[in-house]
C-alpha cells in the first residue's frame, strides 16, 4: 500500500516538475510548498489545526496541508498507520495504543486536556438514580454506566474516576453501546444508572429532565484527552516536515489558549484576545453555530506539552484491563523531542 502511494507521489511529483518546466504553475507549486495532510474530526478539539490552516501558519512554515475529515476517533490513527494521511489529531483510545504497540503511530504533541473549570464531559445520572442518591461522581461505584465501546475514552474516564475514589472498573458495570445515540437510548430507557456524556448531550439530557449532571470529568480527574500524532516512519524519514508542522501547530495552539483558556481572578473562564475571530474559524470548520462551539471549547496546554504521567497511566490502565499488549513500554508511544 505504502509502496503504491509512494510511487504515485513520485509520479505526481515528476508530472508537477514537468508542468513547472513547461507552463505556468499553480500557486502552491510556485511557492514551493511541501504537501502534507492531517486527519481530523469536525470537533472544537481540533480547533488549533483549523486556526493554523485558516490563518496561514502552515504556509508560513512552507507546508500545503490538506485537512481530511473523519467521523470517528477510531479512524484517524488507522489512516495514519495506513499512510492515507501524514498526521492525525484525536482523542486517545486503547486502539491507538495497540497501533502504537505495532509501531504504526507515535504522539508528537498534545491536543486537548480535561482540565478543572472546562466542561467537556459530564457524569450524568438518570432521574431515578439521582433520586436514589447518585449525587456526586464518587457515588458511581457499583452502578451501571453506559459507555461507547470497550477501550474508548469513556472507558478510561471510568477507570480514572475509580483510581481517584478507590474502586476499580470491576466495581462498576460498564455497558458498551457502540455510539452516543445508543448510549443515550439506554440512558433514557432507564437501562443504566449513568453515562459520561459530551457536554452538548449532557446539557440536553439535563434540560429535558431525564438526567442530572453530577460532576465534570475535568474537575474530577484531569487527563490528557488527545494528541497530535504521526507515524514513526515520518519522524525518521521526514523529520523537517514534522518539525515544521508542529511549529505551525504550536503557534495556533498558543493563540487558541490565549483566546479560549483565559481565566479571571475568580477562576472563571473569560474571553481572551481574538476570541470572536477564532471562534468564527472553528465554527465554520466544524459547521456548527458559534454558540454551540463556545459551549464546548476544551483546554489546551499552550506549549503543546503532553501529560506524560497520564499517558503512562493510560497505557498501564489498558494493560491491566487486558486490552493492550503487556510488552508495550509506555514511554515508547510518545516522541517528546518535538515539544520543548
Amino acid at each position: 500500500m505504502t509502496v503504491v502511494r509512494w510511487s504515485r507521489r513520485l509520479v505526481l511529483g515528476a508530472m508537477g516538475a514537468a508542468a513547472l518546466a513547461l507552463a505556468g504553475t499553480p500557486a502552491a507549486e510556485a511557492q514551493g510548498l511541501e504537501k502534507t495532510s492531517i486527519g481530523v474530526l469536525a470537533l472544537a478539539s481540533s480547533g488549533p489545526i483549523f486556526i493554523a490552516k485558516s490563518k496561514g501558519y502552515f504556509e508560513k512554515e512552507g507546508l500545503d496541508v490538506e485537512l481530511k475529515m473523519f467521523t470517528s476517533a477510531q479512524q484517524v490513527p488507522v489512516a495514519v498507520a495506513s499512510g492515507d494521511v501524514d498526521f492525525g489529531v484525536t482523542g486517545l483510545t486503547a486502539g491507538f495504543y495497540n497501533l502504537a504497540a505495532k509501531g504504526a503511530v507515535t504522539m508528537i504533541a498534545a491536543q486537548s486536556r480535561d482540565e478543572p473549570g472546562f466542561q467537556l464531559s459530564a457524569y450524568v445520572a438518570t432521574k431515578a438514580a439521582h433520586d436514589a442518591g447518585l449525587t456526586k461522581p464518587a457515588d458511581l461505584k457499583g452502578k451501571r454506566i453506559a459507555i461507547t465501546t470497550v477501550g474508548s475514552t469513556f472507558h478510561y474516564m471510568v477507570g480514572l474516576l475509580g483510581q481517584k475514589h478507590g474502586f476499580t472498573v470491576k466495581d462498576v458495570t460498564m455497558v458498551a453501546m457502540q455510539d452516543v445515540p445508543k448510549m443515550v437510548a439506554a440512558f433514557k430507557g432507564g437501562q443504566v444508572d449513568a453515562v459520561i456524556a459530551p457536554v452538548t448531550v449532557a446539557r440536553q439530557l439535563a434540560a429535558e429532565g431525564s438526567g442530572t449532571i453530577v460532576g465534570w470529568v475535568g474537575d474530577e480527574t484531569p487527563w490528557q484527552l488527545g494528541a497530535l500524532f504521526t507515524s514513526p516512519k515520518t519522524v525518521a524519514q521526514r523529520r523537517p516536515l514534522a518539525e515544521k508542522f508542529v511549529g505551525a501547530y504550536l503557534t495556533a495552539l498558543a493563540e487558541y489558549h490565549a483566546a479560549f483558556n483565559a481565566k479571571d481572578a475568580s477562576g472563571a473562564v473569560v474571553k481572551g484576545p481574538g476570541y470572536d475571530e477564532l471562534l468564527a474559524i472553528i465554527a465554520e470548520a466544524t459547521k456548527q453555530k458559534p454558540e454551540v462551539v463556545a459551549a464546548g471549547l476544551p483546554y489546551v496546554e499552550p506549549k503543546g506539552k503532553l501529560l506524560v504521567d497520564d499517558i503512562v497511566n493510560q497505557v498501564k490502565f489498558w494493560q491491566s484491563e487486558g486490552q493492550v499488549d503487556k510488552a508495550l513500554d509506555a514511554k515508547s508511544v510518545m516522541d517528546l523531542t518535538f515539544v520543548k
Partner: protein
Amino acid sequence: MPDTSLPMTERSAAPPQPVRFRGGGFTVKGHRWAALLAFVVLIAVWESTNRFGLVSELFLPPPSAVASALAAMAQDGSLWQHLKASLMRIGVGWVMGTVAGMAVGFAMGIGSVARAVGVPLVSAFFPIPKIALLPLFILWFGIGEPSKFATIGFGVFFPTVIATYSAIDSVPRNLIRMAQSFGLPWASILRKIVLPGALPGILAGFRITASIALILVVAAEMIGAEYGIGAFVLTAGNLMLTDQLLAGVLVLSLLGLSIGTVLSILERRLLKWR
C-alpha cells in the same frame, strides 16, 4: 442404399471421413480437490506475504497469527463463552422470527384479506435496516437479551413471511383440488397438502434467514453485550487487534458453514421425495 445403383462419381470414390466430435465443453464436471487446493494455496500465499515482510502484520495478520489468537481463545475458555452467548441469541431470535413469520406467511398465503393487508406492509418494513432501529429497540426492549432477540427476530421475520407465502403460492393447485374432491377437511388440506408442499420454499427461506441471523448477531451484540462472537469482533475492531478480529470473523464464517451444512442435511432428509 446399394453401391451399385450409384454411378461411380468422384465424390463416391473419396474415402470415408470420420465425423469429428464437436459436443465438448459447456458441462460442469466435479473437481473434488480443486476447491481444497485453491484454499491451501490461498492460505500459503497469505502466510508467505507476512513471512517475507511484504505486508505488515497490522494490515493483514498472517493465518498463523489468526490461528494462535483462536487457540488462545479456545484455551482460556472465552471462545466457548462467546459462542454460547451468540448461539443462544441466534437460536432464540431465529426461532421467534421464524415462528411469527411462518404464521403470518401462512395467513397471507391462504387468506386473501391477510394478503391484501400484508403485502404492502411487508414491502414497506422489509427493507428497513434493522441496525437503524437499534436505539428504538433499546428503548422498547432494554439492553438485555430481549433487544438482541428482537433485532435478530425482526431481521428473520420479513424474509420468512415472503418465503412462506410464495412457497404456499407454489403448491400445485391441482393437489388442493384433488384433496377437496376427496372431501378432505380444510385443516387436513392445510396440514397434509399445503404445509408439506410449501416446505421446499420454506426451507430455502431458512437458508437465507439463517445467514441474516448470523449477520444480525453482530449488530445485536452492539447493544451492551459482554460476551458473544459479534461483541468480540466489535471490540477487537475498536481496539485495532486485527488478528483477533479475523479470528472472530473466522468463527462467524465457520458458524455459517455449519448452519448451512445442518440445513443441507435437513433438506436431504425432508425433501428426499423431490
